């Protein structure tokens, strides 16, 4: 049976996973749609997720699909032209083979226990891989470089 909390727990767990990875390298991470002032940030990540898609493949067995996208933004730096590539590497390295999902939150259903394991999809035929795209300098007047890192995950849950 479906649970109303599943999408929220997945999003919260994924956010925490990538926040930890970015914080370890002192790179701020924002969530898409979050109000923030980035004028003084030389580098930052922006996290966006699509999904989860939800499919009951057999009785009580649900398969979740999740697309995770991180926009990497770096101010152009004449002393370190590789800056955007370094940050893209940090983001790509955070796309671990497994991301644990917990009942994160402060509501009555949120006891912080383990829910399931999001597994990174890597398959040539279905074009599932950690994909890095560089957009370069996005505006002639603005010395900013942008890139994106995207990966797809899947999780199984068996309900009783």
């Amino acid at each position, binding site marked *: *049976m479906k*649970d109303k909390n599943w999408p929220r727990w997945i999003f919260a767990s994924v956010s925490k*996973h990538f926040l930890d990875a970015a914080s370890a390298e002192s790179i701020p991470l924002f969530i898409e749609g979050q109000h923030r002032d980035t004028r003084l940030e030389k580098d930052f990540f922006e996290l966006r997720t699509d999904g989860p898609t939800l499919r009951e493949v057999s009785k*009580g*067995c649900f398969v979740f699909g999740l697309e995770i996208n991180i926009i990497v933004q770096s101010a152009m730096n004449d002393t370190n032209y590789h800056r955007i590539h370094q940050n893209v590497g940090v983001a790509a390295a955070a796309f*671990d*083979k*497994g*991301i*644990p999902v917990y009942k994160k939150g402060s509501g009555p259903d949120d006891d912080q226990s*383990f*829910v*399931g*394991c999001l*597994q990174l999809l*890597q398959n*040539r035929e279905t074009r599932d891989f950690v994909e890095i795209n560089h957009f370069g300098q996005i505006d002639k007047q603005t010395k900013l470089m942008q890139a994106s890192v995207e990966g797809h995950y899947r999780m*199984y*849950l*068996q*309900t*009783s």
Partner: protein
Amino acid sequence: MFTKLWVPVFAQIDIKNTELKMQDGTTPTANEIVIKVGEGNLTYSENRTIEYTLDRGRIDEVREGDEVPMDVSFDLLWEFITGNTDSAGVPPTVEDVLKNQNNAATWISSDPDTCRPFAVDVIAENVPVCGAGAPTQEQEFITLPDFRYETLDHDLRAGTIAVSGRCNSKVASIVRSLQPST
């Protein structure tokens, strides 16, 4: 309040979490090499023969027939067929091991009967990962004992070698345990 329960399916087995190895029969520490499968696969089939005996046209007795060895096949990333013999420290290639030659010439068969052709154990170590802190991280080691190849299909364009053969055993030996804490 109505309670919803579910059982986490921790992680479906994935070849990306599974290291494939070959081990010989050296004791106490066996020689072993990692099989580079690349984008290939490993498959094994456990077979048995069941004979159904009819009683005047009706289904009646059942018994197990002759034993059947396991079929095993796997793919290799083809780098070199044979190891560099200039240095004793260079590990043998999988094909050297299968043929008990060159840098693997001193490997001892996994089959204790020395009159039989050379054999190795093929081991698949499934160690699923789900990030730090995930509970009950278990692992499973699947041993296909006494494997002897029967066919080596070499594909230059694909850069792969497809190995197939059989084990002198009916079933795989499987051990499941908790992952050691890191």
